[in-house]
């Protein structure tokens, strides 16, 4: 479970996040929707302990992220917006590296890797260097790496960005599977269809603030709009930066 309370972050004179609060429950896919530059990635980076907020708190399974970063990182699986793979290593080595950094021994890491590769359909590529991989394959490797330690909370920053139809489907299935396992999934997107297709709850962010929070149905009801798209536009105040 992830709880964010009054989070605020400035870069110089630019206010990136201005008092964001929300909750992401276990067994629920929570979508962080907002136009580019709304503060989604900054919020996620604060959750991953890489950025320190000016004020506010983040709790992961009740652990204060900034009091005990090590413990909270252990409970977190992260797919960053740039996947950041090592071109000269194979998927198996990626998974092994991060597993070992999480204190998982080699044998269990390989078992878990095998399981993830099967789930993601990476089996045949597991021992090839990622150098020549397609964007979709890279995303899957990064996802396997993020999930190797079986985290209860999964952060996905624009996971389906730039993927083809088949890869998008595969990633969506994995996200649903993770939800079935009772994990807390927080994923950010600026693509409305993604959020509509996957999310049980939506947190709409614009200009560093939460402008709407609820299930898609609640959002539609609250804004009095028929389509989700119009509900979003209404909530954000303009359709600038929202991908159709």
């Amino acid at each position: 479970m992830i709880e964010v309370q009054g989070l605020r972050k400035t870069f110089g004179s630019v206010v990136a996040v201005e008092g964001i609060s929300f909750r992401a429950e276990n067994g629920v896919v929570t979508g962080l929707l907002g136009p580019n530059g709304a503060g989604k990635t900054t919020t996620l980076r604060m959750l991953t302990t890489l950025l320190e907020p000016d004020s506010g708190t983040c709790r992961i399974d009740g652990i204060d992220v900034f009091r005990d970063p090590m413990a909270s990182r252990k409970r977190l699986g992260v797919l960053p917006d740039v996947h950041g793979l090592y071109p000269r290593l194979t998927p198996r080595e990626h998974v092994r590296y991060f597993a070992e950094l999480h204190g998982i021994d080699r044998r269990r890491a390989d078992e878990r890797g095998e399981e993830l590769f099967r789930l993601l359909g990476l089996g045949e590529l597991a021992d090839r260097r990622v150098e020549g991989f397609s964007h979709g394959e890279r995303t899957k490797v990064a996802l396997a790496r993020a999930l190797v330690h079986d985290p209860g909370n999964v952060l996905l920053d624009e996971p389906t960005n730039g993927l083809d139809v088949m890869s998008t489907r595969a990633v969506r299935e994995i996200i649903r599977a993770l939800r079935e396992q009772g994990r807390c999934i927080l994923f950010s997107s600026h693509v409305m269809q993604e959020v509509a297709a996957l999310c049980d709850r939506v947190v709409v962010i614009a200009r560093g603030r939460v402008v709407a929070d609820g299930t898609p149905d609640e959002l539609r009801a609250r804004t009095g709009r028929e389509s989700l798209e119009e509900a979003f536009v209404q909530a954000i105040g303009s359709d600038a930066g929202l991908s159709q």
Partner: protein
Amino acid sequence: MMQKARIVLRKELTDYVRDRRSLSSALLMPIFGPALFAVMFSVIASWNREDAPLVVPVAGAKNAPNLVAFLERHGARVETAPPDYEQKIRDGDLDLAISVPDDYGKDFVGGLPAALQLVIDGSRNKSRAPIRRVEQLLSQYSSQLGSLRLLARGVSPSLAAPLAVSEVDLATPEKTAAQLLNVVPIFLLLACFVGGMHLAIDCTAGERERGSLEPLLVNPVSRPAILAGKWAATVLVAMVALIVTLVAFEVALSRVPLQDLGVKVSLSAPVGARLFALAVPLAVCAGAFELSLALFARTFKEAQTYLSLLVVVPMVPATFLALSPLREGLALMCIPVLSQAMLFGDVLRGESVPLSYIAVSAAGTLLLGVAFFAFAVRLLGNERIVFGRSG
């Protein structure tokens, strides 16, 4: 922390070894110095070879038959100089020539100084040895004739030689050899700095540019542990470069005919081991320095630019030492790079080095390394460094 550092170390080395381009440059760079050394000294040795026949082209040999006979008696091969001998000397085809003018005989008989010319090109190093030998022969001939003339007039030749100068060279063969080996410390210092450079850039600035720094830092591993792994990898690669440099020098020294230069040098295994041990603290320090510099750089390219300037660092103290020899002292041993350059020289000259010097040099260098490491850890804790200052 050690265990996590070891995991990072193993990954960095695996990654590095697979990068054929940087690996080959890391192994070729240390061989380059010794190879250059071998070629240079093989050529110099061949110029100085004492047993090479001395060829003396003479123009107007018929004017001075006695001189020609003297030269031949002393092992020179006298040849008739080609008509364009001046051009050939200028071009380097001939080392020298003797030109005997027509009135040489007339002056000679008349007891006047008989003029003759030794034609040389003073700018050519390669001709130096034969020129010196011909000059020696000519002055020998001249003083021999002078003595005979004095004797014929009943005067003791020793009156005409008020001084009897003889050279006493105090340089031991090892000292002369160390002069030649002056280049070795430079390349050892270079190996410390350049050896791990690629890896240091790749695992910091490169990691950031690829976007893999962010997922790496999200793992439950402390930043000191991550950096310690990267540090160890950088130092290990630099140590390999050091060993390659030392072995290559050993091979080069055993192949170059240095006995032709009148010196005997070898880089025995114990000397090599001592040099290596002296160099390791510097490799450790250089590794931390490179990591912090590469982290500080905005981009991968910028890191490369900064670090390639490092090549100058070992040159500074080495050049300084060559120009104005410093007296060694404990104070100077505190200065990294300079102290290593001095200690390398001592070991190569076969001089004994006080243990306190070695201890102070190692301690000072390692301390600076730890300071750079602490700086790198602080940089990695800075969000502007982690996410880049350009974006």
